[in-house]
């Protein structure tokens, strides 16, 4: 039997950025809103708590953003990374809406700060949250609670019962018991399914078991799977996920931003057997960041080993763990569990293929390349010969999955029979509706904020 069914007009599934934007918007129009967040309070906020910025269109200087970043330029940047797999109408709508979102975010407690040191290239396009995503999430929870939104932590939703084109019942677990609710409207904002390793392995094959999950362990796709099983329309390739190469010593879940490694361009990367497998100097790092997630995933044991020498240590942002250090390559190999002879041969072959290095320029494509080496290193190729030597292991870190719920421009979900009359979706769980591959820094929070607000507004309208 449904209990307390009359208390809530709108139930929001999830407790990250998209969920909070929906909840605040709905509550502001007078709806009685409940947030069901799977995570316990200290871990509330999903992947949103790991974020740092919001990509924002602006016709002139806006808050911390300098200069101008127009719709077309924003859209071009997006198309470049998605290779055209983009719903243009929805993408352009999100882009246009971001400009109004920024002041709205400030009104709801978010503080921005100028672009972080080491990220100056984003000063025009991305507004950084002061304190990062967790500070944003904290501010939103405060604002939501002041608006009368109730929040239940440790309350994973297990089933949305869909019949005759509407959600009739929300089932969730709290305090070890199953509970039911029958709200007038439901917003799903529970992220992707990347924390469900079995599901990842189903889509990617067994290597996925060695992947690390960069964000929350609570995005297991339970509600996504439940809705797929009931015939909800989906979008996006189930075998696709956004993955990058991160420090191999990172925790299985929730390592976040500090596990990223920016040293690949100044290194050689070998696999378990001590062989190089790809051009480390192909392009500037941000553009290659995502490629290396896949490259490492294709290596034995899904692991890579970055080797640099002391010349290169100051050239990249430090990461959470200090590198493994050794006075000789043989010692480094031993410490990293690599075949020592093979590593020395690989480095010797690389060093021999390095040419003139006077043009070395760490911040741009410098054309300092190897000669006659396969695979080549096309930029920043300097011999690795100045001890101490340093090493990092690399593993595949999954950011999010692309498979999601298909929504229209009003964030409404549908199945074969047409729209589901009281179900909306926002954030990562529907991001596949907009981008089918690739990723643009700051666009995840843009989608979540724009669609969260739309979903909240539509749900509240439905409630009347």
């Amino acid at each position, binding site marked *: 039997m449904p209990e307390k069914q009359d208390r809530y007009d709108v139930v929001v599934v999830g407790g990250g950025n998209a969920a909070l934007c929906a909840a605040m918007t709905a509550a502001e129009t007078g709806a009685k809103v409940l947030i069901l967040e799977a995570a316990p309070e*200290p871990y509330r906020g999903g992947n949103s708590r790991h974020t740092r910025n919001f990509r924002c269109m602006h016709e002139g200087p806006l808050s911390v953003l300098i200069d101008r970043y127009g719709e077309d330029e924003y859209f071009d940047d997006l198309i470049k990374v998605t290779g055209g797999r983009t719903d243009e109408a929805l993408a352009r709508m999100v882009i246009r809406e971001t400009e109004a979102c920024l002041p709205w975010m400030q009104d709801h407690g978010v*503080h921005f700060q100028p672009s972080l*040191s080491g990220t100056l290239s984003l000063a025009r396009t991305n507004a950084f949250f002061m*304190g990062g995503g*967790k*500070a944003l999430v*904290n501010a939103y929870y*405060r604002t939501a609670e002041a608006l009368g939104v109730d929040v239940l932590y440790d309350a994973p939703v297990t089933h949305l019962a869909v019949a005759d084109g509407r959600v009739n019942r929300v089932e969730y677990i709290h305090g070890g018991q199953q509970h039911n609710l029958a709200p007038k409207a439901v917003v799903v904002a529970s992220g992707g399914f990347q924390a469900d390793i079995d599901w990842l392995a189903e889509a990617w094959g067994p290597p996925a078991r060695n992947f690390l999950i960069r964000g929350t362990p609570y995005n297991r796709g339970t509600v996504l799977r439940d809705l797929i099983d009931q015939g909800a329309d989906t979008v996006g390739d189930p075998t696709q996920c956004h993955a990058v190469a991160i420090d191999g010593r990172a*925790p299985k879940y929730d390592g976040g931003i500090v596990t*990223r490694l920016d040293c690949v361009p100044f290194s050689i990367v070998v696999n378990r057997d001590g062989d190089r497998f790809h051009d480390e100097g192909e392009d500037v790092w941000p553009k290659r960041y995502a490629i290396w997630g896949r490259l490492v995933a294709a290596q034995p044991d899904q692991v890579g080993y970055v080797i640099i020498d002391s010349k290169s240590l100051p050239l990249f942002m430090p990461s959470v763990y200090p590198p493994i250090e050794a006075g000789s390559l043989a010692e480094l190999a031993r410490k990293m569990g690599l075949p020592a002879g093979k590593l020395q041969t690989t480095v010797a072959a690389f060093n021999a293929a390095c040419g003139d290095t006077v043009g070395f320029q760490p911040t741009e494509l410098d054309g300092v390349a190897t000669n006659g080496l396969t695979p080549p290193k096309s930029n920043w190729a300097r011999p690795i010969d100045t001890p101490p030597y340093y090493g990092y292991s690399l593993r595949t870190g999954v950011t999010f999955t692309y498979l999601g719920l298909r929504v229209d421009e009003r964030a409404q979900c549908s199945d074969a029979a047409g729209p589901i009359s009281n179900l909306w979706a926002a954030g990562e769980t529907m991001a596949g509706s907009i981008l089918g591959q690739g990723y643009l820094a700051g666009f995840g929070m843009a989608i979540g904020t724009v669609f969260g607000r739309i979903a909240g507004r539509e749900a509240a309208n439905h409630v009347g």
Partner: protein
Amino acid sequence: MLDDTAIEEARRQAQICNACRYCEGYCSVFPALHAQRVMADGDIVQLANLCHNCQNCFDACQYTAPHEFDLNLPGILAEVRQESWEETAFPAALGRSFHRNGTLIAMAAVVAMAALFALLRALPGGGEGFYAMLSHGAMVAIFLPAFVFPLVALGVGLKRYWSRVGGERIRLGHLRAAFASAAQMRNLAGGHGKGCNFEDGDRFSQGRRVMHQLVMYGFLLCFAATTAGTILHYVFDMPAPYALFSLPKLLGLSGGILLCIGTLGMMRLKLRSRPDLQFPPVRRGEFGFILLLFIVSASGLALYAGGGTTALGALLALHLGAVLAFFLLTPYSKMAHGFYRFAALVRDAQRR
């Protein structure tokens, strides 16, 4: 010798922050931290003294417990900071005793008050007002050393601090920058002007900044009152008591009121704060010290009110005893933080 485990732990956490940088906008700790890839012990000590425990970076951190990275930057920097004060204190043994022991502070205050009582009885008066109880000469004989000794001790402490953090030659510009920052307590604004997360979880509030300002300016006004009195006494040959509308009284009265409100406010905020984001072993000592400062200001105000009554002797002993204890404890109590913080701001100005 300093216990290096706290510095080691602070370094571990600072390295995580250096890879993250999300809190860069909150305070001057982060820009200083990001400037170095390798942090020496002295650098960590300097970071610790730049931190004013606003706790904003704790609530903003995605890596606080139960996360395995277990970040608690305000907590560990408070510990390192505390140890740096104790380590550099002169003599160091006194630093450790009083910081960590509220009871000892109370005892010092009581002893000082009792001593004043005894002196008041034993020594002849010589003048009007409270000089009728204790002559000006006797007061100077007691308080001049009690004022000079702590200054010397603090001077030695700061010199030790300066070499610990590798300070360079100080130029006027450094001092100017540090004064400007301290006068407005700029860092206490929290980077975005909304203040600290201190007394109510992740809610930002100006409470701490306001109370701090009241205490600091209240203290400075009281100090100015004494200075004005001294000048009137020696330069203009106008000994106390002074009329209500005299410089020493107006300064002292307003300073005393600010100090009273400020210390009460600080205690209230501190009671609601989260002990594990500070350094718990000194919590009682800190309360003891704020209470002492409150007694200094409240008994001073009571002296103004009860000047003509039979309670004068008792009030005078109470007030002068509290002031005496306060002066003597300054290098070994929370009061020292103002001086170290100023030194840290000067050092930070050198980095920029």
